[in-house]
C-alpha cells in the first residue's frame, strides 16, 4: 500500500476563510437588527438586495475569468462586502443605487484586481464613496430614528419607496427624511450655533443622535466578540478609536462650544462599524502590529479632520480608502525585529 506524500504540518487546521467571514457576518447581526429597529424595513431590504447583487456579480466575473465558482463564493467574502455596504447607505436609497454600488464594489474594486486577497481598496467603502460623490442628495437622505419618526413606513410602503420611488399619499421626501446627527451638528456649527444650543433638540441622546448611539453600541458588542474570537486583533480598532477620541477631546477642551466632545464622535456615523468591521478588513489593512497601530490611528485622525474641517459630514470611508493606499508602504517600514537579529532590525 502506498500512502500519500504531503508536506508538513500534518495537523488539524483550526482556521478557514469561510469561518472567519461567517464570524464577521454573525457579529454584524446585532447591529443590523438594531438598525432595522431604529430605521425600519429599508435596512433588511437593502441587505438582501446588496447580497444578491454581490453574489451575482461575483459569479458572473468568476465565470468570465474562467475560475471555479464554488471556492470563491463559499468563502462568503462577497456577502460581507454586501452587508457592510448595505449598513452604510440610507434606508430608502433607490434600489438601482444599491445595485450599482455593490456591483462596482465586487466587479471593479474586488474582481478586476484579482479577487479576494488582491484588492488594494476596501470594496464596500469604495462602492459607498462612489455613490456618495456621484449621488450626494440620495446618499445623505436618512430617516429619523424610530422614536422621532412620525411617519414610519411599513414593509409594503418601504418596498414601494425603494423600488418605485413612490411615497404614501400625503408624504413628501422632505417630510420623511432627515440628515444624520453628524450632518446636523456640522450644518449648525457652520451657522455659528453653540453646541449647548444645538444639543437642546430632542434629536440628541447621551452621546450621539438618539437611536444612532444604540446602533453604535451593538456594533461595538459585535466587534468585541470578534476580538474575543481573535478574528481581529485589538490594534486597529483601539488605535483608531483612541486617536479619534484624543483629537476630539483635545479640540473640545480648547473650545467646548465649537468642537463636540469625544464620545460624540465615537457614537456617531460609521465610527464603531468602521473601527471593528471595515478598517480591520485584513486584505486592505496593514498586517504588521506596529503598522496596524499607525494605520488605525491615521484613520481616526483623518476621520476627525474631514468631519471637522472637510466637505463631508462623515469620513470613515474616505479615511479607510486613503489609508488602504498607504498600507503596503506602512507594512514595509514597520517590519518586526526578527528573532536573533539584534534590537535594531537588520543585523
Amino acid at each position, binding site marked *: *500500500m*502506498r*500512502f*500519500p*506524500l*504531503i*508536506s*508538513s*504540518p*500534518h*495537523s*488539524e*487546521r*483550526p*482556521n*478557514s*476563510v469561510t*469561518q*472567519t467571514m461567517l464570524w464577521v457576518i454573525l457579529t454584524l447581526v446585532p447591529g443590523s437588527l438594531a438598525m432595522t429597529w431604529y430605521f425600519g424595513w429599508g435596512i433588511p431590504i437593502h441587505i438582501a438586495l446588496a447580497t444578491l447583487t454581490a453574489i451575482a456579480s461575483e459569479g458572473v466575473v468568476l465565470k468570465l475569468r474562467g475560475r471555479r465558482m464554488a*471556492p*470563491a463564493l463559499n*468563502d462568503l*467574502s462577497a456577502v460581507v462586502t454586501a452587508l457592510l455596504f448595505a449598513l452604510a447607505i440610507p434606508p430608502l436609497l433607490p434600489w438601482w443605487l444599491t445595485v450599482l454600488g455593490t456591483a462596482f464594489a465586487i466587479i471593479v474594486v474586488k474582481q478586476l484586481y*484579482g*479577487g*479576494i*486577497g*488582491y484588492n488594494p481598496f476596501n470594496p464596500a467603502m469604495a462602492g459607498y464613496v462612489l455613490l456618495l460623490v456621484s449621488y450626494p442628495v440620495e446618499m445623505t437622505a436618512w430617516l429619523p430614528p424610530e422614536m422621532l419618526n412620525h411617519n414610519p413606513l411599513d414593509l409594503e410602503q418601504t418596498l414601494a419607496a425603494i423600488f418605485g420611488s413612490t411615497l404614501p399619499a400625503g408624504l413628501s421626501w422632505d417630510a420623511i427624511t432627515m440628515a444624520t446627527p453628524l450632518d446636523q451638528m456640522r450644518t449648525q456649527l457652520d451657522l455659528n450655533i453653540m453646541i449647548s444650543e444645538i444639543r437642546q433638540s430632542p434629536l440628541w441622546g447621551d452621546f450621539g443622535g438618539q437611536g444612532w448611539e444604540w446602533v453604535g453600541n451593538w456594533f461595538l458588542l459585535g466587534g468585541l466578540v470578534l476580538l474575543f474570537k481573535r478574528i481581529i*486583533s485589538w490594534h486597529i480598532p483601539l488605535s483608531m478609536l483612541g486617536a479619534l477620541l484624543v483629537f476630539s477631546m483635545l479640540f473640545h477642551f480648547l473650545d467646548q462650544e465649537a468642537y463636540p466632545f469625544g464620545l460624540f464622535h465615537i457614537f456617531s456615523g460609521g465610527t464603531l462599524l468602521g473601527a471593528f468591521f471595515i478598517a480591520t478588513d*485584513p*486584505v486592505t*489593512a496593514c*498586517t*504588521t502590529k506596529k503598522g496596524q497601530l499607525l494605520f488605525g490611528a491615521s484613520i481616526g485622525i483623518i476621520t476627525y479632520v474631514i468631519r471637522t474641517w472637510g466637505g463631508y459630514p462623515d469620513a470613515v470611508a474616505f479615511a479607510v480608502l486613503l489609508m488602504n493606499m498607504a498600507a503596503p508602504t506602512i*507594512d514595509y517600514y514597520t*517590519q*518586526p*525585529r*526578527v*528573532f*536573533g*537579529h*539584534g534590537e535594531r532590525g537588520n*543585523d
Partner: protein
Amino acid sequence: MMYHPPSNKPVHRLFKFPGGLHLPDNKAQSTGTPIRKARLPAQLILPLQQHIGSAAQPIVSPGERVLKGQPIALGQGRISAPVHAPTSGTVTAIDAYPVPHPSGLPAACIVIEADGEDQWAELPPPINDFEKREPELLLQRVQGAGVVGMGGAAFPTRVKLDPGPRRRIRTLVINGAECEPFITCDDMLMREQPERVVDGVAILMRILGAEECLIGIEDNKPEAIAAMTRAAETRKLAATTIIAIPTHYPSGGEKQLIRVLTGHDVPSGDIPASIGMVCQNVATAAAVADAVLRGIPLISRIVTLTGEGVALPCNLEVLIGTPLKDLVEQVGGYTGKAARLILGGPMMGFTLASDQIPLTKASNCFLAASSKEAPDPGIATPCIRCGKCADACPVSLLPQQMYWYARAHDLEKTQEYHLFDCIECGCCSHVCPARIPLVQYFRFAKSESWDQERERKKAELARLRHQARAERLARLEAEKQERLRIKKEALSRKSKADAGAARDSKQAAILAAAKRAAEKKAKLAQQGVVPGNTEHLTPDQRRQINLADARRKPASGPDDQPPRPHDVQDH
C-alpha cells in the same frame, strides 16, 4: 549564617519567545505502557548517511561476518559519524535502498542478515573516571561511538561539543521539551531511564567545562520532571537545574529553548556556542553516557509508534536499521484508520510512501495518522493577509510577505524578509485560514536560493577560470613578443656591427666581377671575336648578321658594345 528557605530550589525565571502555538499534545496514547525492546529483526538496513555532513565510508564487504557494536563504516571528514553493526550477522549487500528522507530517494546502505546470536564485539573499555580524564579523550569516545543529535536533526555530537578554543561554553542546555504532539520517546526515556540522561549530562559538563546546566522539560511531562529531579539528586549532579517550561510549541527548538531558559537570543545564522551555550537532547545525553561509561556505540534508540493508524501505540527500544514494517507488526499492525505515515511529529515530520524503510539514529517517532488526526488541508485559496501566520511565527517573520515573494520567484526579496531564519516549525501553515502550505513555499525558496547560490558560485568559478586563461594567454603572448624583441635586437645589433664590412665586400665582388668580364672581353677582342649570342643560329641567319655587321662597321666605327638582341631580331 545565611538563611535557607524551606525549599532550597530558587524559582528559575523563564522567558517567552514570540508566537508559537498551544496544540493538543496527543501524548497520552503512547505513554500507557513501558518501553519495550523490539524483536531482533531478520535483516537490518543501515544507511551510511544517518547524520548531517558527509556519508560514512564502509569498512566491511559483503559476505563478511560482523559482531554487535563493531564499526562497519567510518566517518569521513570533520562533520560525519561512524556506523556500527546493531547485532551480529553477515553483511549481505552494500547498495542503494529506500531510506527515511523527505526526497524518497534511495541511498547507500549496508545490509546485515542477523544471525540471531546477538554476539557482542569487543567494546572499548568503560571510562568511569571521566571527571579526571581529558575532554579530548571523551570527545574521541563520543565520536567513535557514532553519537549524533537524537532530537531529529542528527548533527554529529562531537562537532557540537567542540566549538573551538576561542568559544568558552558557560551553559549546557539539555532539551527535554519534546514539544511536538504525539512524540513521547524522550518523555519515556526520562521517566524510565533518567540515570542514563543524568550521567550523560555529567559527562557533557566535563567535556564542555560548562559552569551550569539547565534541563528544560515541558510541564505536560510531570512524571519525567519528577524522575529526572530524583535522578539528579541521587547522582548529586552539581550546578544543574531541572526546569519545567510552559507547554508551548515550538519550545523544543534549540534557539527557542535557549530563549525560554535564559532569555538570550542566539544571533541569526549563528550557533548557540556564539553566546557560550551548547544544547543537547536528552536522548543524545543518554547515548553519550552509554558510549563513555559502557563503551556501547549508538546502535539503538527509543522510538514512539503512535496514531490512530496503529493498533497499540507505544514506545519501543529499536535497533538502528530495523525495518519500520517489522515494528508496525509488533504494535499490532495497522488499524483501518491509517491514512498517512509520518516520520517525526505532525508539525515537522515528513510523510512516507510506505513502511519499507529502516529506522535511523534520527527517527524519534512514527505516526500512522488517521484522516481525523491529519486531515487533508484542502485547496489553498488566496492569502487574505490576515496576519495570523505572523502572529504564530516563533521567529517574528512575516510569512505572508515571504509567501508573496516566494510565489513570484523573487528569491532576493524572500531573503530580505529573512527567509533563512525560518525554522520550518509549521506554525504559519497550521493557522493559515486560506490553507496555504506556507512552509512548503519556504522550503522551496530555500532550496531554490541554494541552487542559485551554487549556480552563482559555479559562474563565478567559470569567470575566474576564464579570466585566468585570458591572463595566461596574454602572458604567453607577451613572453613570446619579448623573446622575439630580444632576438631582433640582438640581430640588429649584430648587423649594424657587420654592415660596413658587408657593404665593402659586396662592392669588391662587383668590381672583381666587372674586372673579370672586361678582361674576358679584351681577350676575345684580341682574338677578333665579337661577343654575341649568335652561337645557335642557323647558317642563313648568321650570314645575314655578318652582312649587317659589315654594313654597320664603317658607319659607327669601333664599338665595344655588343649588339642588342632586338637589333638582331629586328633587322
